[in-house]
Each structure stands twice: as C-alpha cells, then as structure tokens.
C-alpha cells in the first residue's frame, strides 16, 4: 500500500469509527451508567417496570405476526413472478416494492382512512360500519398486518436472489424423469430455498421490531405500546431526565435486533448451496390455463395492499372536515391549498427533507468511493468486520440511534463550543451514520465485478492510487454510486423515526410534519401532504426505473 492509500485509510477508519461505533458505544455507556446491583440503577428500574415487559411482549407479537404475513406475501409473490411465465413481471415487481418506499406513517394513515365508521371512502359508498364500533386498524393485529405489508418486499428480495440461481438443469432432469410439478416444488425448489425463506423472515422480523411509524400511528391511540413507541413516549413526556432509562430500553431493542441479524446472516450463509453454476436464464414454469387466474390473483392482492388504501388517502384529503363523505358537493382541494399556499411549515419541511436527503446522498456517495476501494483491497476477514460495523447503525432502530445522538451531542462540542443539538446538523449526521451501508452496498458490488487488469495496467504506467481511483474506478462504477445515492435519497426523504426525536424549531422533516399534523387532529391536511409525498416517491422510483437499463445488474433492488 503506498502512502496516499495509508493516509486515506487512516482518515476513513476515523470516519467509520465516529459515524458507526461512537453512537453505539455512547449508548452502551449510558445504559450501563450508575450500574450497581441495587434496585435504583436506571437499568434495574427499566427491567423491573411492567411497562417494559408489556411493550417487549407486544413488540414480539406484532413483529412475529408481521414477519409471518411478510413471508406469505413476499415468498408467494417471488415464486409467481420469478418462476412462472406470468406477463409483465417488471410492473408487478415495481408495484410490490412500492410499499417499502412509502413512509410507514403514510401507509398507516391511508389504512386508517380506509376503515372505521367515518371512513370517507366507505361513507361515499354507504357501507361504513356502525357508530361506536372500534376502528379495526387500531389494534395489535392491525399493526402486524401493516408491518407485514411494509416488510414483505424484504422477503421478496431475499427469496428472489435465491430463486434466480436455481439450477435449470436440475429441474429439467426432474421433468425428464416425469416428476409432476408438485413433486418438483416439494422435493427440489422448496428444500433449496428453505433457508432463504427463514432468512427473509428474520429480516422482516428485525425491521418490524425497529419500525416506529406504524405502531405510533395505530398503537398510541389504542394504548397499545411497543418498545419504540415506549421510548418515544418516555422521551416526549418526560424529556432528557429519562435518558438513562431510555438508553436501557434502547439496548434491549438493539440486542434483539443484533440477535436477529446474526441469525439471518448465519442462515443466509448456510443457504448458499454449491449449485452447478448460475443458470443463464431463469426457470419459467409454463402456466397454461392458470396464467389468467393467477394474474387476477396478483392484481387483487396488489389492489388490497396498495391501490385501495392509497385511494382512501386521496379521498380523505379532498373532504372539508373529518368524518364527511366525498360527494360532488363536499369535494374540495382546500387542504392542499392551505398546506401549499398558506402553511410556511410545508415549504420548510419539503426544503429540509430534500436538503437532508440530497446532501446525505451526495456525501455518502463521495465517501463510498474511497471506502469501497479500500475495503476491496483488505484481507477478507478484516473486510467483513468493517462491513458489519457499518451495518450496525442501519440495523439498529432509528429511535435507538436518535437517543445515541442526543447523548453524544446534548452538550456543546468540546473545544469549539458549538452546540449541534436542536439544529439540522444533528439529523444530518444521524442520517450519514444510518444510511452509509445503503449507499456502500451497490458500490461494493460493482467494484467486485471490475476486472483488476485495467488498474494493474495503470499502476504499471505509474498512476498513483488516487489517480487510479478517479480515472479508472469511478467512471466504471459510476452507475452504482448513482443508484446507491438515489436509494439513500428515497429512504431519507421519508424518514420519520430518527427525526421524530431530533427535530426542533424550523427543522421539521416531511415525516415529522405528517405525524404531527395527524396527531393534532388535522388528519385531512396530513392526508394532503401524504398524497404529495407518495407522488414524489413514485416519481423518483419511476425515474430510477427509466435509468435501469444503463445500470449494472442488481443495483436497483426491484429490477432484474
């Protein structure tokens, strides 16, 4: 390694440590602070509180059921879309992935608007349930259902990776031996993807454990508290005096999530069977007479999990007040008008979220270039350690990360005396820490596909490493940077969990705006903003889709 690289690696090492390790360590220190064996230490108080155990139980229930629903939906979808000759795969996949990119609080809002006695949609058709009947979504099962829909794409992606590498010849051999389709499924396909199925389920479970938007919108009104909402309520109701206890709670979630991650990684490694090479084209079961019914089934599922709730959201944003049906006489765009032309907070939130998302994406793209380059040149073992370090802040729930950042920055920074707490900068730094791995993954993937010969040639010609990085690696892997950055942008623009605790005057994000509007009873205006956000997200995803053919394979998660 030459000098330039050594300098670069030291710098990056410090960067990773400060972005990923520091918050986690600070949190651990706080949780273990004042640790005595007496009953009065914060951690002991947390462990003694019945609310902790209640929330833990609720978290397990909603995430467990959510993961189960996600597995059914995600696996079913990936089987049909990957293994059969169903028409229009790209479109199915695009719409199936959309729920993952729509912010969870928007998903929750749209489902709440769909059901219940005053649902504008049901009232418009005159089929609303009786007054006083409970809103079915405000329940443990309502939360689980939406968690399942939200994380189904994760299972879908895990399964799909496995399914596309299923060996064609194995199945052809079975078919030649006159095995029935059912036997092929049971004896070949299912055993080969069992581990991927469990790994996808674990991933869905972990992401549901850390989800804040859905249990906050559906659980808090019903008094059904899970771990992330318990932390949020403690912080919102009692403030920084609760930090030690809340840090203890955070550690519980972080531990659960890490256990889930380890399980998932272990299973995924096990699932890599030594198959007979990659098949050049994926398997297509001919559906014959079943094709049309199956396509209708897909369309029905998609309309239930995506189209109808979004339609309900649109309808709810166009009535004058809560609880009214949408008719020709009641139709109004006044909520849009109020939010767009009069409320200064709308513009500010769009501006803040766009700013945060854009610069997080940009900075992370710039960091990923040398970092990815460096990682590819490290010994395998060291690389995997560093890669998992980067993974940690993304895996631990946003609410835990936010607590860690409050702990780190509540006091003015040493030496310079500037306080980051209560500024946009603290959210920005938290985003960098949170999304580094999102940006780095496609970059690493693209770099591992590069032919080393090009670089060796440049090295022989005397080019230093920085030069090689900019003149050779960057142009060849540019699409992957672009895709990584765009993914970060998409996720960050809707972010709620981190900013819910870190926002302050003038620093509202879009997620916070929707959440606060709904909480203060302005659901119609919240729906209007949510509609605008969905349009924005679908637009950016569509844009990404258009560029898909120019990007390396596997960079856009929902594309072949």
């Amino acid at each position, binding site marked *: 390694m030459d000098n330039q690289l050594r300098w670069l690696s030291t710098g990056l090492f410090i*960067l990773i440590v400060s972005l990923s390790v520091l918050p986690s360590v600070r949190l651990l220190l706080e949780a273990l602070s004042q640790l005595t064996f007496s009953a009065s230490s914060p951690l002991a108080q947390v462990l003694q509180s019945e609310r902790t155990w209640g929330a833990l139980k609720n978290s397990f229930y909603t995430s467990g059921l959510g993961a189960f629903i996600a597995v059914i939906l995600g696996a079913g979808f990936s089987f049909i879309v990957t293994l059969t000759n169903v028409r229009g795969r790209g479109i199915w996949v695009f719409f199936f992935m959309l729920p993952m990119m729509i912010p969870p609080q928007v998903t929750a809002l749209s489902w709440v608007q769909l059901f219940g006695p005053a649902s504008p949609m049901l009232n418009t058709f005159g089929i609303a349930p009786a007054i*006083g009947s409970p809103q079915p979504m405000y329940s443990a099962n309502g939360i689980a259902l939406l968690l399942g829909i939200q994380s189904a794409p994760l299972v879908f992606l895990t399964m799909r990776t496995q399914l596309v590498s299923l060996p064609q010849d194995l199945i052809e051999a079975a078919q030649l031996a006159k095995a029935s389709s059912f036997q092929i499924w049971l004896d070949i396909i299912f055993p080969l993807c069992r581990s991927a199925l469990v790994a996808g389920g674990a991933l869905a479970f972990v992401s549901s454990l850390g989800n804040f938007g859905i249990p906050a919108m559906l659980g808090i*009104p019903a008094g059904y508290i899970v771990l992330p909402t318990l932390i949020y309520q403690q912080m919102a109701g009692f403030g920084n005096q609760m930090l030690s206890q809340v840090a203890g709670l955070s550690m519980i979630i972080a531990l659960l999530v890490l256990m889930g991650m380890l399980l998932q990684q272990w299973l995924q490694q096990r699932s890599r069977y030594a198959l007979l090479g990659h098949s050049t084209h994926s398997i297509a079961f001919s559906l014959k007479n079943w094709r049309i019914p199956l396509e209708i089934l897909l369309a029905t599922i998609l309309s239930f999990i995506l189209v109808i709730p979004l339609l309900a959201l649109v309808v709810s944003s166009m009535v004058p007040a809560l*609880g009214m049906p949408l008719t020709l006489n009641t139709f109004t765009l006044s909520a849009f008008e109020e939010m767009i032309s009069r409320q200064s907070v709308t513009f500010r939130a769009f501006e803040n979220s766009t700013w945060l998302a854009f610069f997080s994406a940009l*900075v992370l793209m710039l960091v990923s270039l040398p970092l990815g380059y460096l990682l590819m040149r490290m010994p395998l073992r060291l690389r995997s350690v560093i890669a998992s370090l980067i993974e940690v802040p993304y895996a631990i729930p946003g609410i835990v990360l936010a607590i860690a950042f409050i702990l780190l920055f509540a006091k003015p920074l040493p030496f310079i005396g*500037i306080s980051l707490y209560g500024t946009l900068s603290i959210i920005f730094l938290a985003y960098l820490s949170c999304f580094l791995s999102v940006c780095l993954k496609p970059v690493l993937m693209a770099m591992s596909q590069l032919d080393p010969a090009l670089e060796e040639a440049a090295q022989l010609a005397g080019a230093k490493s920085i030069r090689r990085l900019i003149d050779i690696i960057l142009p060849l892997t540019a699409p992957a940077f672009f895709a990584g950055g765009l993914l970060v942008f998409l996720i960050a623009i809707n972010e709620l969990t981190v900013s819910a605790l870190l926002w302050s005057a003038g620093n509202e994000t879009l997620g916070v705006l929707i959440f*606060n509007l709904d*909480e203060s009873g302005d659901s119609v205006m919240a729906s209007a903003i949510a509609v605008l956000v969905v349009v924005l997200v679908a637009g950016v995803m569509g844009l990404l889709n258009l560029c898909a053919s120019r990007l390396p394979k596997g960079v856009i998660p929902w594309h072949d």
Partner: protein
Amino acid sequence: MLKKTLLMCVALTFPLMVQAQDTLTLYTSQPNKDAQMTVDAFEKANPDIKVDWVRDGTTKLMVKLRAELSSGVVKPDVLLIADSVTMESMVADDYLYPYLSPYRKRYESSLYNSKGYYYGTKLITTGLVRHLKAPQTPVDWSDLVKPEYNNQVAMPSPLYSGAALIHLATLTAAPSLGWHYYEQLHQNKVRAQGGNGGVLKAVASGTKPYGVIVDFLAIREAAKGSPIEFIFPKTGVSMVTEPVAIMKGAKNKQAAKRFVDFVLSDVGQELVLKQGYLPALDGIGVPAGFPKRENIRLMPFDAAQTLKNNASNKARFSDIFEGK
C-alpha cells in the same frame, strides 16, 4: 477527496447555526392553521419581522424546550401555549422575561400575571362532544361513567395536553366529582391517549361517539360540516387562557414585545374571534356557535394550588390509567 468531503460537511452545517437579526421564534400549542394565521397577521402588521414557529402539544413542547435550555440553546423568543400553570412553573424557574404591556389595563386582572410575565390571550373551555349519530346526548360530566357510555368515550390525556391537566385539576377539586370520578372513568373504559386532536379524530371518525374536548376544536369543525356537536355540561366547564410570554433568553426582545402587544391589541383579539375562540378581551363578542359569555359557567380553579399539585396529579393519573 476526503479533505474536500470534510470541508464540505463543515461548510454545509455552518450556515444553519447563523440566525438572521429580525427573526422571531415562536413556540405554540395552537393548531397549525391558527398558528399560521396569527403569524401571517403579525407579519403583515410588522413587515420588518419574520416569524419562525413550531407547534406541538404543550407538554411535549415544554419537554423539548427544557431539553434545549439544559443544553444551553435558547431557541424560542416567545411562547404561546395552553395554560397559565405551565407559565407559572416557567416563572418559578426564572425562564421568563417580565414585560408590562400597555394593553394590559383593558383586561381582567385574573387573566394576566401582575408582574407582566405572561398574558392570557383567549378563553378555552373544556366540555363534552358527541357524534351526531350517537344514541345518547350527555348533559353533564357524571353521564360519562354510566353503563351506556362504556368503552364509548375518548378524552385528552393530562400527560400530553396542558388544557387537560388543568381540566383534571379542576374536576378533581370539585366536591361532586374528585379523584373517584377519574377512577370511575377508567373503570368505564374511557380512553385517554394523546391530545385534543386525538379526541376530535376519534369522535368525528365515529370510533368513539362521545368525548371530552376543548370548545373551539369541536365547534369549528362542526361549522365546517363535521358530524359532531359540542355540549356545555350543567356543572360547568374548566378553562385555560392560552397565555403569551417572552423568554428571558430571547435574542430579540423588542420584536417579542411587539408580538405580545399585537395579540393583546384589538386587531389581535378580533383575529382570535375570527379563528373561532372566545377572546380574552371582553366586549368584542363571541364566535358563531358559542352561547353568550355570561352563560358559560366556569368551575372554580386555584392556579397556585394546581402548580403545587401538578407532578402528583400527573403521577396519580398515570397510576390510574396506565399502571396495572
């Protein structure tokens, strides 16, 4: 490359910490739309001042504010929040700046702090609300604990809303109700989650046909066409005054004083009327849908005692409604 990145980070974060001279930061618990109306009217009357504002429930807002104060940042210049008891606690901790507004003489002395720490700007009472399709029509607080209301009532939580905390203090101090009433409410499965906005959502959307709520939210939404009606209970209503106050650490005290004067002026009070609240200033009328001012019966309320009991009230409420 890395150096550039770091430089960029620093360069990007720096402008966010600089504040313009003529901006005023307002923390308020008013609904978004009202807060924006107030700010717009003030900016129109004072074109040289730009107002940044933040809205949240009073309790959550105060938590945020106190966290900021303890980390040495004073963000707001002016507060416009639900209740005088919270203001009293801010006075006790020496966070407020006394200002004797020339407008104060037109107000009843009970509506403002005699040293000028805060001024009530409107009267917000808490009463009952029902969905128009609901089978019963409650007329008094005691109706809510009857069997036909079991699991049918929503109310704001005192752990979240400043008005609800005062409501709790008022009702528990009433001899006919007391803490026993709150225990009965809990037994009758009355839901207490979130603020008044949550109650509005529950009643207007029909999940809970009855509720306890602040007057203006229900009356105003009903006027827009929402299928709900507000009821003034027979025993009387509790009341908060949504006071305005200047922070001791305000960066822009002159602008802050102008803001206080503005909300107390005729223009400010007429705006309050237009927004659908009872104005603090007597004699400029009541908004549509309200009974005459002298017909609104207020339940007795002791501010000093309430401040003393606040923490224990919250804890006791939390024990009844959340502890098991």
